[in-house]
């Protein structure tokens, strides 16, 4: 499936990509499989969204879609249908904190 992912500015600059990237993710589409694909396509992003040693979401990274916060959703849960069909993007962003 073609999944649309919006990346935060820091990671766009790091990966040298535009704001939105499209990933072809195999079924079932979960946060885990999406991030695996993202890191495979852009290896420079390894460790920036998930901690390299624990594979957990970094504390100040958030996942939003369909005006909902998916940050604490289990990585193995399916993503919403509208994200899976590409009608809506998954937004990855840095939490608002600091200056």
């Amino acid at each position, binding site marked *: 499936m073609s999944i649309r992912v919006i990346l935060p500015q820091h990671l766009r600059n*790091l990966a040298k990509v535009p704001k939105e990237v499209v990933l072809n993710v195999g079924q079932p589409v979960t946060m885990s499989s999406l991030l695996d694909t993202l890191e495979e396509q852009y290896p420079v992003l390894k460790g920036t969204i998930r901690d390299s040693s624990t594979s957990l979401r970094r504390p*100040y990274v958030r996942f939003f879609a369909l005006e909902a916060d998916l940050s604490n959703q289990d990585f193995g849960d399916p993503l919403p249908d509208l994200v899976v069909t590409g009608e809506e993007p998954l937004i990855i962003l840095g939490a608002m904190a600091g200056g």
Partner: protein
Amino acid sequence: MGIVTAVRLLVGTKKGAFIATSDERRRQWSLKGPFFGGWEVYHIKGSPTDPSRIYASQSTGWFGQIVQRSDNGGESFYTVDNQFAYEDPVGSHLFYDGTERGFEFKRVWHFEPDLSDPDLVYAGAEDAAIFKSIDGGKSWGELSGLRQHATGQTWQPGAGGLCLHTIVMDPRSNGRIFGAISAAGVFRSDDWGSSWRPINRGLLSDGIPDPDAETGHCVHKIAMDPNRPDTLFMQKHWDVMRSDDAGENWYEISGDLPSDFGFVIGVHPHQSDTVYVIPISSDYEHFPPDGRLRVYRSTSGGGQWEPLTKGLPQSNCYVNVLRDAMDIDDLDPSGVYFGTTSGDIYASADSGDSWEPIFSSLPAIYSVEAQRI
């Protein structure tokens, strides 16, 4: 026509890296950057044997650690491996409140490229650990003998975290490496980093229960006399110290300094007993005494210090100079450089006799490294 010698300053800041260059007169400077804008660059340093090879530590609290490498003197950078895995048993250290915390990688504070092999580079990390790469940063392995030292479980962080911030290589290729940790102290390896032992005899720290304990000292920076590698100088949290036996014993050389608190210390590359510090008022007043930015130079190996003020602000100056933010080039006369937390870089082309602000209003400066190219 003579050979044109140039100096390059590698500058790490709170919001990116900058590279300044000059000819050998060191009067006119140009600046490039920011590289990695918006990211913290704790340290950026070049290989002593191949100045075109540069390693930069890029990080944020949001997105973690990135390692950047350049093979062309900073014209361009590319990312290398950013996985710093602690070897089992990972173990724990003490936190500020005395509870146990597992060692956990947070960021690289310092890169130390080998003196002769540009592909060999050491990384000093928070939580305190030392890593080594033999392939130019393509992969990293921990030298776990340091963190797994018997005292490791008692180490506690300083205010900036439990960080290994200084790595010094003995130029005699004898396997000797020094590492300094806040707030554990100085450690030495004599077998290329396999095993380590604390070398803190002579240090006295009122801020710990046993002032002359084997470990627990907040060492801010150490520097080696390159011409006498057994002579080391130290800026401790409080106290400026010296050792003449490779760290086996330390003695105080604070002498007539207006304050012996500070972060930086440096040794003149050609004049063995010439040492530089920048006194800071105290550990709660992180600014120069009396609002006067003064570099102090000793030409007697410590004890007697002269203030160097020409060209430096002598009123209303309330900046700090962090531990990696001063360096000295090896031209003759040597250039001395430092950066402040208010984003100013000062340079002296005459070993400190006079100073000029060469750049101002950069982000807060974390590190300054001088390269001769």
